[in-house]
């Protein structure tokens, strides 16, 4: 299968994430027949060749199986996109053209899917995502758009995308495996679980042992801005770099796979109503949660109250 990778308004983090994938690693996919028509960090051909490839795809002389877009789609100034050019054209124009020819279009990272960090206020470069603008359907491409294989843009969100989400989805495509999408167009194989699930601070959360300051052993949800219980991502099921996750290392989940990432409020603070977070774990009713938490605290064992357990 032929893959073309374009970086738009990007930090390169998703490319580095791809290089960090270990299950499966990129080189194994290449051995299996993944052909990199173009990747900005890995191709030995010159960018001159990229122009020929793009022209060849547009003229239907080269078939394109997988188009990967990394980075926010920059539309400034005045919707020309020329703050992020490719030769004489804007990247957004080239990308929209390539998408029409591709069997599968993957938005790699929350920037490409929803606009991400660069679309944070005041959105200096007028950034948007491939098929969403933050939480609103329709981005560079309209909400009803479908690729040659009748699929919408497949959103692999994250900032960056988890390394093995990228490589596994490429493996799905290479091996002809099915891809089931959630309402945000993300593969349910990765986005049907919360970051909270598998967090080694879970037992603290279970008994309502919540940290007030950073650097402790307890749960980060009630006071320190952690979005783990309301963020869909496999970070604590399939560990990062095969080793760890942010929440295990005491860093709050910032909800980087969510369409509205980054939140506008203080990222290290949890907004609360009374002593309960304003934003509750996915699908939970406030009255039930208050009752549960009051009981949980009563039931907490000494070893957790004294934070004896290393997360």
């Amino acid at each position, binding site marked *: 299968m032929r893959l073309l990778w374009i970086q738009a308004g990007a930090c390169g983090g998703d490319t580095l994430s791809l*290089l*960090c994938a270990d299950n499966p690693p990129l080189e194994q996919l290449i051995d299996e027949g993944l052909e990199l028509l173009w990747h*900005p*960090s890995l191709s030995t051909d010159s960018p001159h060749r990229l122009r020929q490839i793009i022209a060849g795809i547009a003229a239907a002389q080269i078939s394109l199986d997988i188009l990967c877009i990394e980075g926010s789609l920059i539309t400034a100034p005045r919707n020309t996109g020329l703050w992020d050019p490719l030769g004489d054209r804007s990247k957004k124009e080239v990308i929209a053209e390539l998408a029409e020819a591709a069997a599968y279009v993957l938005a790699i990272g929350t920037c490409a899917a929803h606009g991400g*960090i660069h679309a944070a206020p005041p959105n200096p*470069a007028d950034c948007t995502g491939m098929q969403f603008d933050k939480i609103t359907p329709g981005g560079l491409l309209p909400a009803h758009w479908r690729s040659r294989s009748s699929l919408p843009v497949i959103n692999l969100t994250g900032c960056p995308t988890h390394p093995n989400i990228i490589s596994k989805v490429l493996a799905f495509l290479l091996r002809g495996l099915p891809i089931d999408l959630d309402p945000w167009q993300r593969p349910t194989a990765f986005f049907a679980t919360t970051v909270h699930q598998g967090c080694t601070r879970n037992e603290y959360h279970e008994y309502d042992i919540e940290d007030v300051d950073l*650097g402790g052993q307890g749960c980060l949800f009630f006071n320190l801005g952690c979005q783990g219980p309301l963020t869909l991502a496999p970070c604590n099921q399939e560990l990062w770099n*095969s080793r760890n996750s942010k929440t295990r290392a005491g860093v709050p989940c910032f909800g980087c796979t969510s369409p509205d990432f980054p939140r506008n409020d203080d990222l290290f603070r949890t907004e609360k109503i009374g002593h309960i977070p304003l934003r509750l774990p996915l699908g939970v009713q406030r009255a039930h949660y208050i009752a549960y938490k009051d009981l949980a605290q009563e039931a907490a064992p000494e070893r957790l109250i004294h934070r004896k357990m290393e997360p």
Partner: protein
Amino acid sequence: MPRLTLELDLNRVEGDVTFQVEIEDGHVVEARCAGTAYRGFEQIMIGRAPYDALVITPRICGICSTAHLYAAVLALENTWGITPPANAVHIRNASLMAESIQSDLRQTFLFFTPDFCHERYVASSVRDAVVEAFAPFRGWMHRETLRYSRRIIEIVALLAGQWPHSSHMVPGGVTAKATIRHIVDSQSLVTEVTRWVEQRILGSGLDGWLALTDGDALEAWLAAYPATALALLDQAARFAGLHNMGFGASHLLAFGAFPLPEPGMGRNHWLAPGIQPGNDAVLPLDPARINEHIRYSWFRPYPGGKHPFDGETVPDYQPASDRYSWAKAPRYGSEVMQTGPLADLVIDGDPLIVDLYRQHRDSAWLRQLARLRRMTYLLRFLRQTLDRLATRLNEPHIIPVSPATKHDGRGAGLLTATRGALGHWVSIRDGVFDRYQVITPTSWNASPRDSAGVPGHWEQSLIGIPLADPDDPLEIGHVIRSHDPCLVCTVHFLEPGGGIRNRIQLGV
């Protein structure tokens, strides 16, 4: 001979680049690099809570996000007068060392050496060995670099949770202690990667390699281990003439790599900060002399240069004017500076690199050699840092920061990132940022002309390069990649406006 203007794109760097170079008699006589893809991080920070810098600014760059995190936390601690405990400093240092080793390996063997497989070098005596080692996804060194760069970065995950883009450094320390399990795992990873570096890159032990003191000793070492990646890189680079090209700014700049929490033996840093103003005397760094010009940049004009504490970033896109870049032009006093591993090691006084710099100046070959040399130092420093952490497991990794401490004010965080001198300058008013200015290493190196019209370091380093084939200016690719450009930090390169004759679009 008419002048020819080439417009050159460059890949295999962090971000994309376009240069405009003028060719006369087969040599580059003028060069402009023009920066693009304006993403506006400094604007996004205005009005945000101070700790948000720890989440937003690492996302400036995917390959050096730990360095941005470190600079951001230093800027906040500088503002608030906080000194973190020793273990926190060790954990931060270990994270940044592992990130730099990863980056130096990937830059060298994924981005730089593939060019030596070009058909132009078919007559080289080591042609077959170079292709067998360096060809993408087939060569043994390319494949092993993919594997071992993944391994070393696992250390950042152990300490920080994930890589890229964690936020484990916070004012007062780090969010998690290094447990004995994490330390042992990290030590094992360093051992594994060091063994690979010794066997496949160097040919023998790290200690013997780091004991080399001059160019003759290096020659003897390379002759003794001719089948290693280092020896192949050296031969391929010499065949391509890289020891004779790529000379840029003669002033070197280093902000200092990895502060030592317990200074000793006259050292405050693993690698010292300083300025090397074009001669042998290294001078102390004076951050007050740093300023940025925007005469040739697409920002609202102001005269001369501004210190980043007074800096502003107001876009003013004027493609039809003589301004040509989204990058600003940083200067030290009025001087153009070069920063990166070569500057780090010359300023710190590594005998081998100092000797070679005296003999060969800042050729593309020496810049690349210095990068590998620094990577080997970092392996040693990283092991020593982990060993120190192992002796002090019960010491604190963070101190409390009271709300009253987090007052308004301004501060700076300066350090050596993988590509050289990185600084964040912040100002907090009414509890939120009212100014956030970043100068990245690539901003220094990729600088456009300043108010006096003096070209930046890269622009200078292209002058005089002979082009064997102007239709395929491979030499420019070698030279620019030897600087390890990180365009996402700073710039992508955009078409300059006006006055272009005989314009040809090419790629390298």
